[in-house]
């Protein structure tokens, strides 16, 4: 196939050659609930390459930018509809190819092969037509459009298109009738008399009241014909010999019809739409999502961000999602988070980790705006919570793990540490925490550190102190704000009324005039 746009890499997702995909998830996945997010995105899509794409973050700003532009453009409803239509048709192609491979009788194989090419052509034609009708702006989609122009103009494609229509027309025009009397079946040409179902409707329609008749069954049925159906089809072939001999030679001529770029496109679009579909419930719940600005050395800043996995659960339960904002100043590298338990500290760490990881996948992230580092690695070390008898053994293991992290971390790494020394004595926790944070400060990595040791919040200008504010009204709620200063209280009863939204102002808002 000739490529009219030599700069187009033949892909919507990769600006240069695609790197090798990772078969296993990064180690930070369970701590950050990224495994849940990936499970959510892959729900209903068993194909392993989809997971592998999600396990493989991008490593250059240019690559992120290329993918972000492609996805951002895909979010336009017209383009999205085109992609969904294309994917549905390509799924049919796949199923029908499987069907051809499975079938035993010739006439059936010919028919299913024709069907698979019909779906393929519909997929390509409809996508191309829709792309032609749109003002496109990103390099990826513009490149795809010119590629499809050249592909569809090629002689081979044109021949397939023409022959497919001829064969289809022949087959669709076949009409026959059947009489079943006892065990005898008669097949003949012709159309037959008045339809019985119509007579039933005409006589009984007056009783129609609360529902329309159910639509005619879509014909879900066994994939294999039984021998009676095959005998009938054989008789139909005998009644129409010329139609079926043309069909047989069609399959021979076009056996390798699938274009590799089109096939790859279907995978890439599946990745993109699965990702966007996963976010759709959040969008409906009016939670903000944005394409982050990624850079190699920026100060972290985000508005109204939230834990994506937790938000999915809360939205499904109809619960509100608490959002957090943060603006780091130049020179600040380490966030030290203290405050009561159940205050959303772990959730805040997950939010940070997800924000960075998802930004490197090139997709939208939670939040109304975000500027993040394109992290080379995301390191996590979360306290598991279980009490172990061998405290010194555990501390030893913790320190070994931390040492590994610190030796691998670079100024472009993100390190998330959650209550690492919580089971040690306060003195140890202070000492070890100070040491670890000072080392991280020297490396210059971005870090968030959850601790119960207040002294760690003021080690230097490079640390930022954050506090999880616990809502006194609802101590069981799972997500809360992480703030630089505590919230102030109010009258208990009024705050209950306020929380249940029955104050005068709320009622005026809630009851439409």
């Amino acid at each position: 196939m000739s490529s009219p746009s030599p700069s187009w890499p033949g892909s919507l997702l990769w600006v240069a050659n695609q790197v090798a995909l990772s078969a296993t998830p990064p180690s930070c996945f369970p701590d950050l609930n990224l495994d849940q997010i990936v499970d959510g995105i892959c729900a209903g899509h068993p194909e392993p390459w989809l997971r592998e794409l999600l396990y493989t973050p991008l490593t250059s700003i240019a690559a992120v930018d290329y993918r972000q532009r492609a996805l951002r453009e895909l979010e336009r409803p017209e383009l999205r509809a085109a992609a969904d239509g294309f994917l549905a048709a390509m799924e049919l192609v796949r199923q029908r190819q499987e069907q051809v491979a499975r079938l035993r009788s010739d006439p059936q194989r010919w028919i299913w092969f024709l069907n698979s090419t019909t779906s393929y052509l519909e997929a390509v034609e409809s996508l191309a037509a829709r792309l032609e009708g749109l003002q496109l702006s990103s390099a990826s989609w513009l490149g795809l459009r010119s590629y499809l122009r050249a592909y569809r103009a090629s002689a081979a494609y044109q021949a397939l298109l023409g022959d497919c229509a001829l064969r289809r027309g022949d087959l669709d025009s076949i009409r026959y009738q059947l009489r079943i009397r006892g065990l005898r079946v008669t097949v003949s040409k012709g159309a037959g008399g008045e339809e019985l179902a119509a007579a039933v409707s005409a006589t009984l329609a007056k009783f129609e009241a609360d529902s329309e008749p159910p639509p005619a069954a879509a014909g879900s049925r066994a994939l294999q014909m039984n021998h009676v159906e095959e005998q009938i089809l054989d008789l139909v072939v005998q009644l129409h010999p010329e139609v079926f001999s043309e069909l047989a030679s069609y399959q021979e001529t076009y056996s390798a019809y699938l274009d590799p770029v089109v096939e790859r496109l279907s995978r890439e679009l599946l990745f993109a739409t699965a990702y966007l579909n996963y976010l759709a419930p959040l969008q409906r719940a009016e939670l903000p999502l944005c394409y982050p600005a990624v850079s190699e050395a920026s100060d972290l800043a985000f508005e109204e961000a939230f834990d994506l996995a937790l938000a999915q659960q809360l939205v499904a339960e109809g619960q509100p999602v608490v959002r957090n904002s943060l603006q780091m100043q130049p020179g600040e590298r380490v966030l030290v988070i203290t405050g009561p338990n159940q205050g959303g500290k772990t959730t805040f760490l997950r939010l940070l980790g997800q924000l960075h990881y998802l930004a490197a996948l090139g997709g939208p992230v939670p939040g109304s705006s975000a500027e993040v580092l394109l992290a080379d690695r995301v390191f996590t070390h979360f306290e598991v919570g279980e009490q172990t008898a061998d405290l010194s053994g555990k501390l030893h293991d913790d320190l070994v793990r931390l040492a590994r992290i610190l030796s691998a971390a670079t100024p472009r790494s993100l390190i998330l540490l959650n209550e690492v020394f919580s089971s040690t004595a306060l003195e140890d926790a202070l000492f070890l925490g100070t040491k670890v944070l000072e080392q991280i400060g020297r490396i210059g990595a971005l870090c968030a550190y959850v601790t119960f040791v207040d002294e760690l919040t003021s080690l230097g200008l490079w640390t930022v102190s954050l506090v999880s504010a616990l809502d006194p009204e609802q101590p069981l709620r799972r997500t809360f704000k992480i703030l630089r200063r505590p919230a102030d209280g109010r009258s208990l009863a009024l705050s209950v009324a306020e929380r249940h939204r029955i104050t005068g102002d709320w009622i005026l808002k809630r009851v439409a005039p």
Partner: protein
Amino acid sequence: MRPRLLSPSRDLLPKAELPWGSEDLLRDLELAALLEEMAGGDAQILASLRQAVLSSAAEPDLQAASYRQAVLEDARRCPELITSLYDLANQVIAAERKTFHSVFTEYPSARLHAALEAMDIFVGAFGELRGLADRYLDRLQSEGLCRFLASCTQEFSESYLAELKALLAELAFPAGLFLAAELGTGGYGRYRARKRPRPQGNWLQRKLAKSPGLSFSIDERDEGGANALSELRDRGIERSATLLSHYQDQVLAFFTALRDESAFYLGALRWQRLLEESGAPSCTPLLRPVAERALSFTDLRDAYLLLRLRAGTVPNALAGDGALLVTITGANQGGKSTFLRSVGLAQLLMQAGLPVPATSFSASLAQGVFSHFRREEDAEMRRGKFDEEVARFSQIVDHLAPGSMLLCNESFAATNEREGSLIALQVVHALSERRVRVLFVTHLYEFARQLWAEHDPGVLFLRAERGAEGQRSYRIRPGEPLSTSFGRDLYERIFAVQGTG
């Protein structure tokens, strides 16, 4: 086609979920107990009354309510017509249930068979309905019954029933099955059953016109082949079977509606009789549109207590047209809750088109009736209880609209008086602004006092009356809220009896 005895435009759907808030009304107003008395032990009548009363409360329909008032007049004149309709519907439903209900009903042939049996029963019942129409039509005046019986005469004519029987006979395929076919997606035939072709011309023309066709027969020992063939037959008749089953359901729904709707009137007739036996006055309420905010009555009694205590109940009167808020204060056990309940029940009965126990009752329909009653049994920690009642109130707010009626009994009492009053004031001011009518029984003196000081003509103040010696009359009269708690005399009385003063 539907009976439409309860509304010219809508069906009563007894299986539909009850509207939001129904549980509270059933419990707070003793509506559940009242409906049981009205139904006299017939579960069907109970279900119909409950559905009609609660759905009319949620969706006021002035036209439907007066339509029912008229049908009820006819029903009083010809109670045996209502009984006949109810019995016929019940018989049809019972007979339909006994027809062929196979575990194989996923097979079109089995479905078709079952539907044919049921249809035979229906055809007979159509004839009986026409007979009832012939007998009663000229004795009736209400739009509801006249229109229904006239449609029976017209729709179930002799010629229609003959046409229907002929169709049912054809669906038994006495001459084999004829199918028209085209090739479906994978070469599978798409089959649709056809009527038996009618022969045309003389025998020679018919013979020549016959297309030759190719045939095969399935061997008698080929069980798989026979199964495949019957599956193919099933596909051919599937659409006809589906449609016939569908219409079977529709006709059954017609008879179910007839049963449910006639059950409502049997309940209404019984309620009428109970009212007459009680000796207290009753009336057909005057229905007024939502926007008028009318609420006036004389000699209104609590419908439920009336059945329990007969005429011993205390009647009350109110001239509350235009009022957006009615507060009721005063002595404990002075009849405040009973008063609130009596108004709520009368409002619900009126919206359903039923008579009420009053000499006169003239009120606007409410766009939803809701109750927010103090729940004694939810006693947890004080804090939790207040939270619970506020949460419950908040759910009600979700369903309020201009024209709604809200009955509050000791709302916001689970906190201290200052805070409770503050919240109650905010709530009633906002609800008045949204034209939600509120009847509020309260002990929150601070709340009532501030309202009194506002001199708003849209607010009425009622008080449980107390005689000079502290005895209660259970009458509720207009009056300024009094600060003295009447709990004191209740206390004195109880403790005096026990001799522990």
